[in-house]
């Protein structure tokens, strides 16, 4: 294996047209992904993490969205310039994606077998029979009981957790190199969430897939990811490997996020630590650092110039003039 990255995103800018003007949902982000790595992208709603995920497959609804700048290099080749028909052979085969809502993500009027076979036959020359066998094998692998029978069932006959697991099986049925998972467990109950996350990790090992996990849940990140990007208002504010990030977060936002999440503690706190204020409106972003208004370390300089994402030590990159 040469030193080439599996996926490299360079200076990506994605703009949405709203009735009040143009909004940059993703504003000049760069990151890369190695083989069989698990990269977490974490942030609050509206930070651009889902748009980033969708852009990797060129699935951004257009209009209103548009990639206006930057490159997404998959094995060295740019996919931003790829045609829609070329993307068709790419999606599901090279990069696959699963979504937040297992209840609506499968087509209700076709059996899950039918849908799985469609995906397999889209990317291989398998006959219907072969595809079906492969689908059954996939269901066995994710330990769905009675796969021969269940393959002829419809999505509504299954629970949310099972549907999400089938989505994962479908996504991985053509051995893609990358699986993009957009909030895969947010809509599920905690006990089911654990099943689904375990499933993803297990299949990832088996197929040697790289995973990009988009979530707002730092707990899920801590348990599954190797590297983490923290996004705020369309920008990456911090990038580090997972243990560094959780042990010594450098950006004030990351730190605030880590302390403010409700978690089970030994002792009840009198008052939960919080990040004050709200996320700024993307239409009226402040000059300078976008986090300045909520930041406890803010100085005059922060309001004049936007901090670039820079290496602060050999483990962390932070976009902050005065990091911890």
């Amino acid at each position, binding site marked *: 294996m040469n030193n080439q990255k599996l996926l490299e995103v360079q200076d990506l800018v994605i703009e949405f047209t709203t009735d009040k003007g143009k909004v940059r949902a993703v504003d000049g982000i760069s990151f890369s992904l190695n083989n069989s790595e698990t990269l977490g992208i974490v942030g609050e709603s509206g930070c651009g993490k889902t748009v980033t995920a969708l852009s990797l*497959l060129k*699935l951004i609804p257009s*209009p209103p969205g548009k990639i206006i700048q930057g490159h997404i290099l998959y094995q060295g080749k740019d996919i931003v310039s790829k045609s*829609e028909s070329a*993307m*068709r*052979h*790419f*999606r*599901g*085969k090279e990069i*696959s*994606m699963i*979504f937040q*809502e297992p209840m*609506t*993500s*499968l*087509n*209700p*009027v*076709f059996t899950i077998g039918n*849908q799985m076979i*469609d*995906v397999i036959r*889209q*990317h291989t020359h398998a006959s219907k029979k072969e595809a079906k066998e492969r689908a059954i094998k996939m269901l066995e692998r994710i330990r769905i009981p009675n796969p021969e029978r269940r393959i002829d069932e*419809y999505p*509504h006959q299954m629970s949310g957790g099972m549907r999400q697991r089938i*989505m994962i099986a*479908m*996504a991985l049925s053509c051995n893609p190199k990358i699986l993009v998972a957009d909030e895969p467990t947010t809509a599920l109950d905690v006990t089911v969430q654990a099943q689904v996350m375990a499933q993803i990790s297990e299949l990832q090992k088996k197929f040697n897939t790289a995973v990009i996990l988009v979530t707002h849940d730092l707990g899920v990140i801590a348990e599954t990811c190797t590297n983490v990007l923290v996004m705020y208002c369309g920008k990456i504010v911090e990038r580090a490997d997972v243990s560094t990030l959780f042990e010594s977060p450098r950006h004030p936002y990351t730190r605030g996020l880590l302390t403010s999440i409700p978690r089970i503690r030994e002792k009840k706190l009198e008052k939960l630590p919080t990040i004050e204020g709200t996320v700024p409106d993307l239409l009226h972003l402040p000059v300078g650092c976008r986090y300045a208004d909520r930041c406890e370390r803010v100085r005059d300089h922060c309001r004049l110039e936007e901090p670039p994402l820079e290496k602060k030590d050999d483990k962390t990159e932070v976009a902050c003039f005065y990091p911890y």
Partner: protein
Amino acid sequence: MDTFIYSLRKFFQSIPLIFGVTLISFVLMVYFGPDKTYDLLGKNPTQQQIEEVHHQLGYDQPFLTRYFIFFKEIITFDFGYSDSTGEKVSSIFARTIPVSLAVQLPILISGNIISIILALIAAYFRGKMIDKSVMFVAVIGMSVSYLIIVILFQIIFCSSYGLNIFPVQGWEVESFTSYLKYVTVPVLASVFLSIGYNTRFYRAVIVEEITKDHVRTARAFGTHPLKLLFKNILKNSLIPIMTRIIITLPFIIIAGSIVLESYFSIPGIGLVLYDAILTGDLPIIKAAVTWTAMIYVLSLILTDIMYTVVDPRVTLK
């Protein structure tokens, strides 16, 4: 078996509906309807004669009794005789409905197929120029009156001021070629109109389906857009599409052809109704209203059963 029990229950549930339709037609056409006494009697009838005829026609009976007599006529399909021609209503219907079907079925089929295809195209390219053009044509189709289109198409295709390639009107059908000769222009006119409303409706249905999550999933797995459109999306949108087609069916067959058939002198049920409306021939209108309601109820049951075929989530419970 489930289907049978379900249909039976549905049928019982629709009894109030039939009841309501007959009640309204009774009130409008019989209770407040014209007094036939003077038609039956000559000039200057005596008071006694009038009362006698009133009694014979049942006018002196109370409201409910008269309604039940009317209701009995209807459920036994005994609509009597046409006021103007004296022909049995049921035989008029038997003679004219096939003609109407011969005109309306091509309209229904081609109109819907064209609309669905246009709607798929427009929905797929939504926001683009193709979509806008299709929708513009559809709005024009919606805005033109049936009467205008019928007159216009007749001028264009059937008159010496236009192409003059089809007969102006009439229905002398002996062979398939002569059938085509008489049916083409009426069908073209109606299809043009039906495209207006249908395309808009179908496009809205399909666009709603296209924006659903499962379509995004299919795209994320690389499904071909045409397969997406014709397999996934079309089947999902089939319920509202079919409902629309089936529910409009009885109205199209029995009443939708009034303007068309009268204008082109096609001897179908529409022409009969046109004459009946102009002359106030109640037995015919009464029969048409009741029949439509009956078929309507059956269509409703049919659509429910069709749902279970199309959508596995729907059960007849």
